[in-house]
């Protein structure tokens, strides 16, 4: 039938989702382009820990983008929900079962409730005041996790599994060592390695579990973006005054967006615990909140794919660049004359290893300056350039940004 929809998506979105699914499933191969033992092998990102993080932080950023990208409310405290999700998930593993499904469900419920409470207060203000309020709440949560809430969070040690946890459902099968997280008996840390053409591909249960959840989360985000609700959220960003005078109450819309994005964060936190069953207050620190902001903006706020891209790039940089230390640099540049080698290594060392944040900072600065729409805009420009041919005519050809300026945020006022 013409115009029939698959899963409620139109043709373009369906194709988009299929591409995302394909990329997600093939990540263990795509991120492993270099042969084992070669010079470039350390740029391979196809190991479970990194891939899981990319998927999990992808979910976190997609959720954050529902709030920030659509409504324009910049939360600076989203890591609080990530942390709460982790704690909730670990508690579920301590009390009930090591199966991750109940754990991530509880993580979402608890973080959703927490988001409703924080959102209810914070959303009374907008703009910078909203950001500061969310930041304050997140920092409060962080401090409380270290102090008064120690019975719940186990303070600085962090919440961990122990052998004398009740674990009601797993009692019978428990051995003398700490149990591992699993999904109906399939251990999260189980991996299958395949060697092809000198490359070792690791297919890990944990990654594929995260990947399936991430695809579902992404699908829900597409539906939400295309729904009337998504349009209302964009209306909130565009002009709240018109919205109220059109008979709509922006508050419940923003609160719903806040809670949904809080639940995404909780889901991500739950998954972090599902991959590695411990939770610490560090996950709530303001730098963690800042990270998701950077991911979203780097990838492209308000776009569907942007946050995932941003999360991927940042997690890749964090894990790969931080591993390049001076001795690695030395092995790269050993062919240079001594004096010059020292200088080159000194310069590169600032950007790698401990200094990977500098690389991130420079990347972020370049993207924000030259590609305000984030990496997604870069990809769009690139594909356009390829499609229209490389011949650059004058600037009046084709689209003319000067005369069709991108819509700017309007401050409503009378």
């Amino acid at each position, binding site marked *: 039938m013409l115009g029939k929809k698959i899963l409620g998506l139109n043709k373009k979105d369906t194709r988009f989702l299929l591409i995302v699914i394909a990329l997600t499933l093939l990540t263990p191969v795509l991120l492993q382009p270099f042969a084992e033992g070669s010079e470039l092998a350390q740029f391979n990102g196809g190991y479970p820990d990194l891939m899981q993080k990319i998927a999990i932080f992808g979910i976190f950023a997609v959720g954050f983008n529902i709030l920030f990208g659509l409504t324009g409310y910049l939360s600076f405290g989203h890591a609080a929900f990530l942390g709460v999700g982790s704690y909730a998930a670990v508690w579920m593993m301590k009390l009930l079962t090591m199966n991750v499904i109940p754990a991530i469900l509880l993580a979402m419920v608890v973080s959703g409730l927490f988001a409703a409470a924080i959102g209810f207060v914070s959303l009374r203000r907008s703009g910078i005041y909203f950001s500061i309020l969310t930041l304050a709440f997140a920092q409060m949560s962080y401090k409380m996790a270290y102090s008064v809430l120690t019975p719940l969070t186990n303070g600085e040690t962090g919440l961990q599994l122990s052998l004398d946890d009740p674990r009601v459902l797993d009692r019978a099968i428990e051995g003398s060592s700490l149990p591992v997280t699993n999904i109906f008996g399939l251990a999260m840390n189980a991996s299958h390695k395949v060697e092809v053409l000198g490359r070792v591909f690791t297919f890990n249960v944990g990654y594929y579990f995260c990947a399936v959840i991430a695809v579902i989360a992404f699908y829900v985000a597409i539906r939400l973006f295309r729904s009337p*609700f998504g349009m209302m959220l964009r209306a909130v*960003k565009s*002009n709240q005054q018109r919205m109220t005078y*059109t008979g709509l*109450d922006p508050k419940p*819309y923003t609160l*719903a967006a806040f809670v949904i994005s809080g639940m995404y964060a909780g889901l991500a936190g739950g998954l972090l615990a599902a991959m590695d069953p411990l939770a610490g207050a560090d996950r709530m620190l303001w730098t963690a909140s800042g990270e998701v902001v950077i991911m979203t903006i780097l990838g492209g706020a308000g776009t569907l794919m942007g946050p995932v891209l941003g999360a991927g790039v940042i997690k890749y940089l964090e894990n790969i660049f931080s591993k390049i230390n001076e001795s690695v640099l030395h092995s790269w540049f050993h062919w240079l004359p001594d004096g010059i080698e020292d200088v080159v290594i000194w310069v590169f060392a600032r950007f790698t290893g401990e200094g990977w944040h500098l690389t991130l900072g420079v990347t972020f600065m370049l993207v924000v300056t030259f590609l305000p729409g984030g990496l997604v805009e870069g990809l769009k420009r690139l594909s356009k350039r390829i499609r229209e041919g490389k011949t650059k005519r004058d600037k009046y050809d084709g689209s003319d940004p000067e005369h069709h300026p991108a819509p*700017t945020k309007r401050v409503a006022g009378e």
Partner: protein
Amino acid sequence: MGILEVKGVGKRFGGLQALGDVNLSIEENTVHAIIGPNGAGKSTLLNCLVGKLIPDEGSVTFAGTSVLGRKPHEINQLGISRVFQTPEIFGDLTVMENMMIPCFAKRDGAFRMHAIENMEQETGLIEKASTMLQDLGMYEKRDMIASSMSRGDKRRLEIAMCLVQEPKLLLLDEPTAGMARADTNNTIALLKQIKEERDITIAIIEHDMHVVFSLADRITVLAQGTPLVEDTPDNIKGHPKVKEAYLGETQQV
């Protein structure tokens, strides 16, 4: 009994009496203009009607219900739509989306969690929005980003957004402020068309006498926060009190 009844409304900002003892009755299906020199309290009065300001005294009832203490979105849901001095539209959204939002507001009320439904399934509302755009001659522009249109078109869109909600009362706050003569005349023609084709009450606040006299059935002249006279346009034209308010007191020689 008019559709909008304002009785003894007063509003004070610190030491300034912005409105004092305002009585006003707007009859159903008429165009009622409120005019007055700068600082007469026109905008304050309008803000009291739409819930932006709460008057210190007096009452405002719309179709028998008091609007005082209600939030702007609740007042809109009662059937009052407002057009602003500078067009307030959703600039980042397309023209069609701009039209769909009031359609949803009219059908679903102030809030509805319709996160899983698809926009394209709302054929009834799309139909309604398209018809309205066609009526106002904007259908060709439906896929444009609203902020990229001319000011006249933005105004037209804003009016379309209000009309698609089928309000009982349409409030216009200086709809032609800052417009060129041609745009002003277009807007007058549009409002005339609306007045003739629909069952709608229009209250218009205006500076421009040309606009007022070509549209209004009745005119209230506001000066220093109180209504001076209320009459038909013909009688207002030569009224000495109006001249006095606008041009200053006549000097007795």
